[in-house]
C-alpha cells in the first residue's frame, strides 16, 4: 500500500513537473518577448499556447544526427545523465505539509549531489561530441561547477544552522515556528549568494558560459539534435524548477503564506516558485554575460568569502541570542 502511494505520488509529481517544463519554455519566450517589445510565439493556437507541443513534436520527429567521430556510448549516455539526475532531485522537494515523494533526512545534501551529477552529463557531452566548441563548453562547465557548488553549499549552511536539520520539511516547519517566519530576513547575505550561485548552477544568463551561443555556437550541445537535444533542454528547465523550489523551501518559508488558501495547500509554494522562474527570465532579458575567468573570480573571490562570513555571522547571532 505504501509502495502504491509512492508510485502514485511519483506519477503525479512527474506529470506536474513535465507540464511545468513544457510551459516554462513557453512563458520564457513570452515574457522575454514582451520585455523586448515583441510578442513571442503567436502562431500555434491562440497566442501560441500550443507552441510547446509543436516544439516537442518537431524535436521528437527530427533526424537524430550523431557525429561519426563521436564517442557513441558516452554521447548517448550524457543527456540521460543530465535528465535523470535532474528528475531524481525532485523526489525530496516538499510541495506542502507531508507531501514529498521521499522525506529523507539528508534532503539538502541529496539535492546538491544530484545537481552536481547533472554537470557530469554536460562535461561528458562536451567531451564525447569530439567537437572543439563542445569541448570548450564542457571544460567551462566543469570549471563552473567547482566554483559554484561550494558557494551554494556554504550559503545554505546558515539555513541549516538556524533550522538544525537537513530535512527540507523540517526546515520549512522550523521557519514557520521561528520569529521571522521566513529565513530571508536573517539570511539575507546567504540568500544573495544562493541566488547568484543558483543562476550559475543552472547555466543561465549571466552565467550561461557552457552554451554561450555567441562564443561557442551552442557549447556542449552543439552536436546534439532532435530528442537528445530536447533531453538537455528539459534537464535545464527541471534544474531551474528544482533550484527555485530549493530557494523557496530554504529562504521563503515553503508552503506557508500570510493566510491559508482553502483547498489548495500548495498555492503559496507554487506562487513563490513561479516568481523565481520569472526572475530567471527577467535576469536573462536584462544582463550581459560574464567572461569565463571573471565568473571564476566572482565565485572564488566574492561569493565564497561572503558565504563564509555569513556562516560566522549566523553562528555569532545564534550563540548570542540563542
Amino acid at each position, binding site marked *: 500500500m505504501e509502495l502504491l502511494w509512492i508510485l502514485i505520488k511519483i506519477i503525479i509529481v512527474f506529470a506536474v513537473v513535465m507540464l511545468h517544463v513544457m510551459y516554462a519554455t513557453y512563458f520564457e519566450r513570452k515574457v522575454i*518577448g514582451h520585455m523586448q517589445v515583441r510578442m513571442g510565439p503567436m502562431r500555434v493556437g491562440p497566442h501560441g499556447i500550443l507552441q510547446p507541443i509543436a516544439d516537442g513534436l518537431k524535436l521528437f520527429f527530427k533526424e537524430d544526427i550523431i557525429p561519426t567521430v563521436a564517442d557513441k556510448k558516452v554521447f548517448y549516455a550524457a543527456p540521460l545523465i543530465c535528465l535523470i539526475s535532474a528528475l531524481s532531485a525532485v523526489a525530496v522537494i516538499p510541495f506542502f505539509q507531508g507531501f514529498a515523494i521521499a522525506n529523507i533526512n539528508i534532503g539538502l545534501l541529496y539535492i546538491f549531489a544530484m545537481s552536481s551529477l547533472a554537470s557530469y552529463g554536460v562535461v561528458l557531452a562536451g567531451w564525447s561530441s569530439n567537437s572543439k566548441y563542445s569541448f570548450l563548453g564542457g571544460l567551462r562547465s566543469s570549471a563552473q561547477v567547482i566554483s559554484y557548488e561550494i558557494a551554494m553549499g556554504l550559503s545554505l549552511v546558515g539555513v541549516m544552522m538556524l533550522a538544525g536539520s537537513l530535512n527540507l520539511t523540517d526546515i520549512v516547519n522550523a521557519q514557520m515556528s521561528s520569529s521571522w517566519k521566513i529565513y530571508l530576513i536573517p539570511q539575507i547575505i546567504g540568500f544573495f549568494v544562493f541566488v547568484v550561485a543558483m543562476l550559475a548552477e543552472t547555466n543561465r544568463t549571466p552565467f550561461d558560459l557552457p552554451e554561450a551561443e555567441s562564443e561557442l555556437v551552442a557549447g556542449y550541445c552543439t552536436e546534439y539534435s532532435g530528442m537528445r537535444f530536447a533531453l538537455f533542454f528539459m534537464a535545464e528547465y527541471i534544474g531551474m524548477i528544482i533550484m527555485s523550489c530549493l530557494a523557496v523551501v530554504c529562504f521563503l518559508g515553503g508552503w506557508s503564506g500570510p493566510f491559508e488558501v482553502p483547498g489548495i495547500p500548495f498555492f503559496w509554494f507554487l506562487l513563490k516558485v513561479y516568481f523565481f522562474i520569472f526572475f530567471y527570465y527577467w535576469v536573462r532579458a536584462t544582463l550581459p554575460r560574464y567572461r569565463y575567468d571573471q565568473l571564476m573570480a566572482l565565485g572564488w573571490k566574492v561569493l565564497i568569502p561572503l558565504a563564509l562570513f555569513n556562516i560566522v555571522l549566523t553562528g555569532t547571532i545564534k550563540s548570542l541570542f540563542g
Partner: protein
Amino acid sequence: MKIQYDTRKKLAERIFLIEILKGLALTLKRLFTKSVTVQYPKERKKLFPGFRGRHALIRDPNTQATKCVACMRCATVCPSRCISIRFSVDKKTRARKVNSYEIDALRCIFCGYCEEVCPVNAVVLTEEYEYSDYTRDPFHFDMDRLLKNWDEFLDKNKVDQDKYRNPFLRPRGLSLGDLPAGKRIDVPEEWTYEGQVIWKDGKAVSAKEAASE
C-alpha cells in the same frame, strides 16, 4: 571633444547593484508596454508609393498593349543587364515595334534605373514583394507575364490606374523642363519642383508658401 565618463561607483552602488536594478526596472516596464511587432501574414505594413518590388509593364488602357517604344534606354542603363528587348523597325515610318521584352528578375538588383529613365513610363517596379517560387523559371518575365504583373498589382491593391502615381514615373523635385514629355504627368503638388518642402517654425511647409508669407 574628449569623452567624459566616470565608471567608478559609490559604495552604495557597489553593494546594492543599483545599475543592475535600474536595468531590471526598465525591462519590467517594457513588459507592460505595447509591442511593436507587425504580425506579418495577418497584418501588412502599408508600403510607400514607389517601393521597388516586382517588375511590370504598364498596360496602355487604350490599346491593351505595352506602352514601350523600344528606345532601349532601360536595357542600356541596367547595371546588371537583366533586360533584353527585341524590336523591329518599320522601314517606311521608322517606327519601332517591340517584339519581345524580357526581364530576368533573379539577375535584377532593383535599383529602379529602368523606370526612372523610361521616357514613356512603360516599365515600372510595383509594390508587390511576395512572389517567391520553387523553381527559377517563373522569375524569367516575358512581356505577357510583365503585363499580367501590372494587372495583378492593380487588382490586388485596388489601384486605379489613372490615379496611381509612382515617384519614379515623375521623379520628385525636378522641374518640368528637365523631364521628357512622357514623364510630365500630374503629381501631387508636393512632388513638383515648385512645391518642394522646407522646414519652417516646427513644421514642413512648401517653399512657395514660405516665400509668400
